[in-house]
């Protein structure tokens, strides 16, 4: 008897599948996921999960959250991140303390794997959603992520 129930279940599952795609077919004009990119570059909004490049957000006092721990540099599988750091005397405590001089990021070598962002203990670097990253000279792809004169936010290290 399983012969007939096989036929019944087979037809049923095929119709279920056709219902799904049929629904898509009917709603295709409203729900099309295609972005007609050069036409809509003013309104195009990238998705949260999109990985454009690594950036370091700064607040209004030109302060970032990077302590210079180099976790990202160690995590990066192909050496896209170089941190040039220094020790300076903290005016509050009078002790010597590590701080970053330059956080250098080579976009040309980055594979967008995201290991640096996962490794960062202070969430100092994040993904940006920009997508028009092509330039005429590859030296433009070597970026310094911390802005000149920026300092680390107070309390990040605690």
């Amino acid at each position, binding site marked *: 008897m399983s012969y007939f129930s096989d036929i019944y279940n087979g037809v049923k599952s095929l119709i279920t599948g*056709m219902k799904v795609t049929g629904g898509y077919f009917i709603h*295709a*004009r409203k729900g099309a*996921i*295609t972005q007609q990119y050069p036409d809509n570059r003013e309104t195009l909004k990238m998705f949260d999960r999109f990985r454009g490049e690594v950036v370091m957000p700064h607040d209004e006092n030109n302060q970032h959250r990077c302590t210079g721990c180099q976790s990202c540099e160690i995590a990066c599988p192909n050496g896209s991140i170089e941190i040039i750091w220094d020790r300076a005397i903290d005016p509050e405590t009078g002790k010597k303390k590590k701080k970053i001089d330059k956080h250098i990021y080579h976009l040309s070598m980055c594979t967008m794997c995201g290991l640096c962002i996962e490794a960062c203990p202070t969430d100092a670097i994040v993904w940006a959603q920009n997508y028009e990253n092509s330039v005429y000279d590859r030296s433009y792809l070597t970026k310094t992520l911390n802005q000149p004169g920026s300092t680390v936010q107070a309390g990040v290290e605690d």
Partner: protein
Amino acid sequence: MNFLIMNIPLNITSTIHDWIYSIMPETAASITIMVLIAVIYLALFAIIGLYLVLLERKVAAWFQLRLGPNRVGPWGIFQTIADALKLVSKELTSNDRIDKFLYNLAPYFVIVSTLIGISVFPFSKQFQAFDINIGLFFLFAVSSIGVIGILVGGWASNNKFALIGAMRSGLQTISYELSVGLSLLTMVLLTGTLQLSEIIEVQRTGGWLILQGHIPAIIAFMIFMIAGTAETNRAPFDLVEAESELGAGFHTEYSGMKFAYFFLAEFINMFIIASIAVVVFFGGWLSPFGITDGITWFPEVLWFLIKVVMIIILMMWFRWTFPRLRVDQLLTLEWKYLLPINLANLMFMAVIIWMNWTI
């Protein structure tokens, strides 16, 4: 020779037919008509082929929530012409150890069989090139020639993927021919004739055959659609060209216009299968419920085309929904399921006609 030419019953619309015979001697007129019909059908062939490609791409896009081609012309209507130009201008490449004669012959087998196939369809009451009394039988016979082209092409290519694809095609077409034949035979029981124009005349008085034959006709239609999709080597039965397994299957070694012939033939085959379904199940060029019967100038061919496009969209729906079958599943479906159901259905239809239970 003259005798032979005179006996081929070719007719376009009778007014043009009569007019040409009135201004020319008989032999010249019949040759003129043959040339005229050839030109019309070749044009039709090209237009149908090209625009079915566009329809396929558009429909596929809608099924996948995309937009489809929309850059060349409004809604992309010239996209397909651009594609054709590209194919025409491409180089015809081949590898060293092909069988040259067979390799070049194969695309013509495929395309000529489809071209003969569309000649017998009654697109409207008058617009039918070749109305023979064994119409359906002729269609089977001709559509089976196409598979020889595929086998020859795969064999002559000297390529393992092409050969496997061609062998699968042979296996598939020969198996599913049985189901196509039997399901149409079920309907022939109802019509009592194989002539396509007669089949439509039967439906003018009694309603479309799918209604006249009710349950067995619907079963026959479902089987015909499954087997017909398999006949045309389309997904979910596209083992022949299964991209993920065989490169491009039997036409791996073909390029340019020779590839385009195979490609066009696939789409024209789809048109032929849809046309058979329309003629045998849905009343051909007859309007639904006779709503345009009173309007004499109404082009009946429009109804035919609307119905054909509906069936083609149904086949595209199959293609973009179902996963591809394995070879053993393909044969199980045909020999263990479709064939017994079909035979039982044929008996059922015979009983229904015998007891006069048709609607």
